[in-house]
């Protein structure tokens, strides 16, 4: 394949990675931004989203689109409920102390992972795509579903941006993020905001997983890569910054796609990690992050 079409193909694949990464990292960033909790179990919410999507779609004996839509509704709800319970039973009892919650979420990571292994087994499970459409470019054909994944992620990110910046719910979340004590002094139930944000962060990861599972398959160890890449994205973009998360996800996702296609996936990871190191040294708050109060 000539250079131009090859670059286009790599960029498209990179954009799919970026779209999923942006959604997943957005959840992580939201949780850190508002709660100051580094959620090491975030990748497991992604994994749980994928496994529940497989489970739900396998129960639906109809057109794959029906099963997929059911999974798209049920999976984030189940994962959100699991996150809510975890928040109540673990994080709240630790009073959201940053160091303690890192250790606690490492524990949650293993518990969720082993529960998934015990319940669903080690096999990778395929979920059929809701539709099979091939978009024909002059040089190659491309999956219409993958393009739909990009579009869905863009819509969800825009919806998140709208909620955060244009609604009362977003105003309450931002007030809690900037100064939780003053927020309480103005009637904001910070505990409830934290619970809602933690569940929402997990649901974003679950939605990302449902969108990608027809391309990747679901299995119990699949949470590790999204977790590491999400950390890379939020460190580069700035923890708690929506704009930074999206920009960094595109940078890392498309960079990964292009470098992997023309050189090697290992080199792509090396570059991303190097970028994180440079950001941590020269701009620790990230490209778009602000220092916390």
């Amino acid at each position: 394949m000539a250079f131009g079409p090859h670059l286009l193909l790599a960029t498209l694949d990179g954009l799919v990675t970026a779209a999923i990464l942006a959604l997943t990292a957005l959840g992580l960033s939201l949780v850190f931004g508002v709660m100051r909790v580094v959620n090491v179990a975030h990748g497991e919410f992604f994994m749980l989203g994928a496994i529940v999507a497989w489970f739900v779609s396998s129960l639906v004996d109809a057109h794959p689109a029906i099963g997929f839509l059911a999974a798209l509704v049920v999976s984030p709800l189940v994962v959100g409920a699991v996150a809510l319970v975890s928040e109540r039973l673990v994080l709240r009892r630790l009073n959201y102390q940053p160091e303690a919650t890192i250790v606690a979420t490492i524990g949650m990571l293993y518990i969720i992972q082993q529960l998934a292994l015990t319940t669903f087994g080690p096999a990778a499970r395929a979920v059929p795509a809701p539709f099979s459409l091939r978009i024909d470019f002059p040089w190659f054909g491309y999956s219409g579903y993958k393009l739909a994944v990009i579009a869905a992620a863009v819509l969800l990110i825009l919806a998140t941006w709208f909620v955060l910046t244009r609604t009362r719910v977003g105003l309450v979340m931002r007030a809690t993020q900037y100064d939780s004590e003053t927020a309480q002094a103005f009637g904001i139930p910070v505990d409830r905001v934290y619970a809602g944000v933690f569940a929402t962060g997990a649901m974003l990861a679950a939605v990302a997983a449902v969108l990608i599972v027809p391309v990747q398959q679901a299995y119990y160890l699949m949470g590790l890569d999204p977790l590491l890449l999400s950390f890379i994205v939020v460190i580069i973009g700035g923890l708690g910054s929506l704009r930074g998360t999206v920009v960094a996800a595109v940078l890392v996702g498309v960079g990964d796609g292009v470098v992997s296609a023309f050189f090697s996936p290992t080199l792509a990871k090396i570059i991303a990690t190097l970028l994180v190191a440079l950001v941590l040294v020269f701009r620790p708050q990230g490209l778009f992050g602000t220092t916390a109060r």
Partner: protein
Amino acid sequence: MAEVLTVTRLSSGYGELPVLHGVSFDLRDAEVLCLLGRNGAGKTTLLKTIMGLVPATAGSTQLRGRELTRLSAHEVPRAGIAYVPQGRRLFAEMTVAENLEIGLMARQKGHATRERVLDLFPVLRERLRQRSGTLSGGEQQMLAMARALCLEPEVLLLDEPTEGLMPSMIARIREAVAALRAEGVSTILVEQRVDAVLAVADRVLFLENGRSRDVLDVATVRADPAMVRRYVGVG
């Protein structure tokens, strides 16, 4: 005058460190009660304990007979107490309008309340879309008070509102406190500047090492500079 807020043997602290030791006083309808005391006397801690931001370890705080120490911190402002913290603590990344909206939401007040508050601080009306962190110190203090007044509170707690302000701004803040009293709002004012206290207060509560000492009307305090020197170290 009826009592709006009654604080009885209130104690609190930070973790293992006790700060307040059985503070008692009452706040009357439409009065300005000033707290005076040296640094570390417990003035800010007292305001935070009334707001539920520092948990009370003993004693009670009642707003017209309703016990506040059993409420969660976010329920206290909804009961009718508004707080202007030391250093203003605005949501600096938000606009002036958004800061006011946070205040309005606390007790579900609407447009009419916002207009009344903006009439009290007209300079804010021109800056509604401006990020609050970019306002001058005096404007930030006005916004902090305006945000609190959006609750239409019965009781207003002001923690050093004139700190770091120019004399013209201090006079403006003082006028606002007097105007609020005329509207029936009761205020507890923490101040380091004794002249500011004497200019605006009805009564003065002296705090010493986390304990409430004398509660005197302002004329008595004015006539006894030695007392001020004893509790505050200046006069």
